[in-house]
């Protein structure tokens, strides 16, 4: 039998070792899975590495793939930090693309690049309001936010599909090829977000904004009264209420912040890469769920989210470009799930020591 014994203190080095060890463990477990399904794990992994990080071009594609993940990762981390389980990053992201795309379509021509801040604002507002539905229900009616945010994901997905496939909405292309194949209207070129080129490496504007936002989140949670109160509420809601903190408002604020971050991701996605409302692509993307994995692996630290998002972006970029008979769909998601599982196991090792229990023979005085 094994027994867990609480550690008196949390050694600092474990904060680094756990994520690295859990990725390594997941790679080993993933290798077994690949081996069982009849492929060579080493070849598969070296192809992933090659496609994700080996050249400036590969790295640029990885950074593009990392951008939405960065935002959904920040969204999950911001909420989980207070013990609020916002699983709705996916839906908030989708609503963010809807509102940002609307803004871009509306004013992209007349305002030019000045529309970009408006798109950001629209994305943030869209995501925050969508999340606030679950936030209000959680804060004032005590409705389980895990299930409501998740249900809202499906509703958002249906809403976006409806806008493009079953209505004559503002987002839909109603001329030319759009008459045969339902598709979104391309945003005016003026609303395309710029990229920063460093030689062969292209840094998307969204990624830079996301990094700045990550630093902002870190400062917010580390150095402000808001962050302090969130930490207290997460440790003990009763104590926080007793100290006069308004826990309900804080719950709503944190969910809305989290949703706003996901919605900002949606704005970046539509402004930086897709340039249309693409419900099919969004619904298959799984950005919101990957964000949860990223937040857990980053141990809810916003700065660490940036690095983990680039790592996971590499994985999904490689997954997309390698997809084929010997690189099946779902492998990337499986690897991500395994990383998450091993990270959870690692957290246990951080909090507890594992001891073998020794049965003491009866009748022996101890």
């Amino acid at each position, binding site marked *: 039998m094994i027994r867990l014994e*609480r550690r008196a203190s949390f050694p600092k080095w474990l904060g680094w070792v756990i994520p690295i060890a859990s990725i390594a463990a997941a790679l080993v477990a993933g290798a077994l899975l690949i081996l069982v399904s009849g492929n060579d794990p080493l070849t598969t992994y070296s192809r992933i590495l090659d496609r994700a990080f080996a050249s400036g071009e590969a790295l640029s594609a990885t950074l593009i793939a990392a951008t939405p993940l960065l935002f959904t990762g920040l969204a999950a981390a911001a909420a989980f930090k207070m013990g609020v389980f916002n699983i709705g990053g996916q839906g908030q992201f989708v609503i963010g693309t809807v509102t940002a795309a609307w803004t871009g379509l509306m004013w992209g021509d007349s305002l030019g690049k000045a529309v970009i801040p408006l798109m950001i604002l629209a994305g943030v507002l869209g995501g925050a309001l969508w999340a606030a539905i679950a936030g209000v229900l959680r804060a004032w009616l005590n409705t389980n936010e895990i*299930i409501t945010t998740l249900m*809202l994901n499906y509703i958002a997905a*249906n809403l976006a*599909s409806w806008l493009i496939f079953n209505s004559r909405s503002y987002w839909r292309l109603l001329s030319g090829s759009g008459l045969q194949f339902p598709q979104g209207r391309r945003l005016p070129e003026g609303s395309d977000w710029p990229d920063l080129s460093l030689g062969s490496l292209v840094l998307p504007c969204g990624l830079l904004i996301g990094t700045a936002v990550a630093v902002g989140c870190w400062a917010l949670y580390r150095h402000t009264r808001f962050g302090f109160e969130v930490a207290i509420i997460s440790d003990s809601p009763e104590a926080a209420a007793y100290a006069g903190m308004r826990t309900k408002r804080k719950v709503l604020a944190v969910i809305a912040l989290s949703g706003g971050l996901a919605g900002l991701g949606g704005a970046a996605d539509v402004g930086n890469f897709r340039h249309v409302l693409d419900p099919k692509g969004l619904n298959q993307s799984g950005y919101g769920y990957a964000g949860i994995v990223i937040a857990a692996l980053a141990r809810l630290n916003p700065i660490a989210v940036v690095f983990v998002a680039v790592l996971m972006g590499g994985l999904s970029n490689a997954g997309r470009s390698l997809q084929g008979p010997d690189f*099946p769909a779902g492998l990337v*998601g499986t690897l*991500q*799930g395994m990383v998450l*599982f091993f990270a959870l196991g690692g957290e246990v090792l951080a909090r507890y020591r594992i001891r073998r229990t020794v049965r003491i023979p009866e009748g022996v005085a101890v």
Partner: protein
Amino acid sequence: MNSNLFIVIAASAIYYGTPLLFSALGGVLTERSGVLNLGVEGMMLLGAVCASWTASRVDGPGWLVLSLALLAGIAAGSAAALLHAFAVITLRVNQTVSGLAITILAGSAGLSSYLASVWDLKNPVKHQFGKLDVFGLGDMPILGPILFHHTLLTYLSWALVVLISWYLFRTRAGLQLRAVGESPQTADAVGINVVRTRYVHTILGGALAGVGGVCFSLSIVPTWQDGMTAGRGWIAIALVIFGFWRPDLAMVGAYVFGAFSSLSLTLQARGVKITPQLLDSLPYVMTIAVLVVVSGGWAKRRLGAPAALGIPYEREER
């Protein structure tokens, strides 16, 4: 509403409600022991993909293949549940996070999709659970199509509702199970093995979620689609709350939600022009609405959630 439409809706409510019922029954068992399982969606998909593989690759008479496929679904759900049980009972990982991890790992973009492409499940399964004509009563007016013209899985689920109700409220083991969910300390003090009880019922819950997945892959959606359960695992979790942790009420809830799930197809088949996305969203909107109702103060008092739900049991830290 004409009676014909009523019959179609009632019959399809039961048809589409069956997977919800299996998964919700599993949830009742698991949560009664004090363990929250948010991995239901993943366990359903894993059960679905394993059953689908068995039904397309194993040769033999239909009944044998289907039994094996059902067993494969049960085994897959149980295996995932064992992982969850080990994480939350032995390692005391946060139950919410572990369940989520299971759903991400096994879910629509994870292992179930991976296995489906490795196993090449592109074609419809060779055998599926067909609708039976029980006692030759399938042609009876009104009641025939509603009650006597379903798959074996539906009748199995009815038997389970009776069995689990009896087990929970009329047997010693059921009483012990409820004790573990209410107060593991007390249960431990009177000599009930808390850890074993929780393991057993978490695994049983996973097995039933696996069967819920089988309902999809071998009956409702016989050709594999990634994420074919479309959030039904999450609705099942809500149904456990909605059903006040009781099998009979979970059954009522499952059929109400079955009706909402089927509405889109039923009405479209009859040429009613309603936006499909609106109807498809109904089960999700209703889930939120129902959760809001049962989470109000009025319902809280008489809900009867197991008191120790979601709390790991640590003997040393009483």
